[in-house]
């Protein structure tokens, strides 16, 4: 009997304690954020959406190489000598036309690895997290600001210049070869040995110049 | 329209209720006699008891019997409740033993 009364008392006590907890929460403030009307404050370094300040990009491909999922696509065309692309805000000279700078945000895994290698700090996360699309291709962001006509023109120019340079180089090569021939004739040395040594040094020199 | 209805339909009196109870009774008898399922028979018995109750209450309404009829009907309901409880306990026991509640198959006492 005493046991029964005791257990009954404990039952009611625990029920009332529980109900007290719930009624306190009933009158307490709610933690809900009315999302489209009220927005959460995004932390400073939140990884949300990649953005490229294309004016500062020097086309160095470092970000594309750093990307673990290969979601950054960069195509560059070297600038011709008649145009000066100017300098970035950090002072680096720009030497390439960026004909293509695409980031596929559908593939991006928000690792932030592309942000740090950038020498000019032109690729970074912006606090925009509402960019869902019905079509996945819409998630590929194009940052290059060159128009197609401009791209074609620049490419043509670059090809022309490259061809010219090639011609010049060939000219130079020919001249050099001619000079070498003259020297050869003058020196009257065994031809095989000489040519071997000459070509060897030349290729070394050109390698050095390239790198 | 209303007049026509009034002519064809008579104000219900004692006989009307008695006829209803008689038909109910015969339906109950039909269920008891023609069905071999124990629970079905039980339901037939309930119908018979109900028809008896209608009789009692109709007489208590229309004759000198007064409230005594209702009193008897009340006792009938009480007994019906007791009967149903016991009968269903028996039916469950029978089902547990014979795995059937068909009255013709439960023939252990026939010898």
């Amino acid at each position, binding site marked *: 009997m005493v046991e029964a009364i005791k257990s009954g008392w404990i039952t009611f006590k625990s029920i009332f304690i529980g109900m007290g907890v719930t009624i306190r929460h009933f009158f307490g403030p709610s933690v809900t954020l009315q999302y489209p009307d009220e927005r959460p404050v995004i932390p400073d370094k939140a990884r949300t959406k990649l953005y490229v300040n294309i004016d500062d990009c020097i086309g160095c491909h470092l970000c594309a190489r750093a990307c673990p999922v290969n979601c950054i696509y960069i195509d560059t065309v070297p600038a011709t000598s008649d145009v000066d692309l100017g300098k970035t805000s950090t002072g680096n000279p720009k030497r390439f036309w960026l004909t293509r700078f695409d980031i596929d945000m559908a593939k991006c895994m928000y690792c932030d690895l592309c942000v740090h290698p950038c020498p000019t700090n032109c690729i970074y996360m912006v606090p925009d997290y509402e960019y869902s699309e019905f079509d996945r291709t819409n998630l590929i962001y194009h940052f290059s600001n060159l128009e197609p006509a401009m791209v074609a023109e620049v490419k043509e120019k670059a090809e022309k210049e490259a061809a010219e340079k090639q011609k010049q180089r060939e000219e130079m090569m020919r001249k050099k070869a001619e000079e070498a021939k003259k020297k050869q004739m003058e020196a009257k040395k065994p031809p095989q040995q000489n040519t071997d040594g000459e070509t060897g040094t030349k290729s070394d020199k050109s390698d050095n110049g390239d790198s | 329209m209303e007049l026509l209805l*009034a002519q064809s*339909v*008579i*104000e*219900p009196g*004692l*006989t*009307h209720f*008695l006829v*209803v109870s*008689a*038909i*109910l*009774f*015969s*339906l*109950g*008898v*039909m269920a008891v*006699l*023609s*069905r*071999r*399922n124990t*629970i079905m028979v039980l*339901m*037939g018995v*309930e*119908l018979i008891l*109900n028809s008896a109750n*209608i009789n009692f*209450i109709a007489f*208590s*309404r*229309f*004759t*000198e019997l007064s*409230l*005594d009829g*209702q*009193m008897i009907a*009340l*006792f009938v*309901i*009480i*007994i*019906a*409740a*007791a*009967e*149903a*409880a*016991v009968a*269903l*306990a028996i*039916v*469950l*026991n029978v*089902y*547990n033993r014979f795995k059937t509640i068909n009255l013709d198959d439960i023939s252990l006492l026939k010898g």
Partner: protein
Amino acid sequence: MELTTILFYLFSLITLGAAAFMVFSKNIVHSAFALMFALIGVAALYVLLYADFLAATQLLVYVGGILILILFGVMLTSLGYTFNFKTVTVNLAPASLLSATAAVLLIFAFVTTDWKISEIAEPTDTVYDLGMLLMGDYILPFIVAGVLLLIAIIGAILMSTHLSAENREGV
């Protein structure tokens, strides 16, 4: 034409139709639900006879109690719930002959008899009078009914516990 008349024919139609459906339906669960309509119809007939207390008792005991017991009995005694709940009909001809004879004889007797009808005033408060009767003239039957119910309950419980004990031995 009064509302009472319409209601009488409506409810007797419901009662008899449901009872007929109950008797002739092959599916025993359908029969049980038809019985429910019949019992509710009977309760309504009680109301038309100014037996409001009995109508409520009818609902409470028959519909709320006995019928649920019957349904439980049906569910517990059929082999699984997918079983068709079909019941067999036997002795159709003699049974219908007998019940038709009973109906005809009873109706003949009821219609031809000259009942001594007395126009008593419509009672307004049957509950009070019933209570007085129950505690006065009918006190002995009342107590006996109580004892009967007690015995029935004990008997039913004993039988079902015996049943479950047997089950346990079987396992």
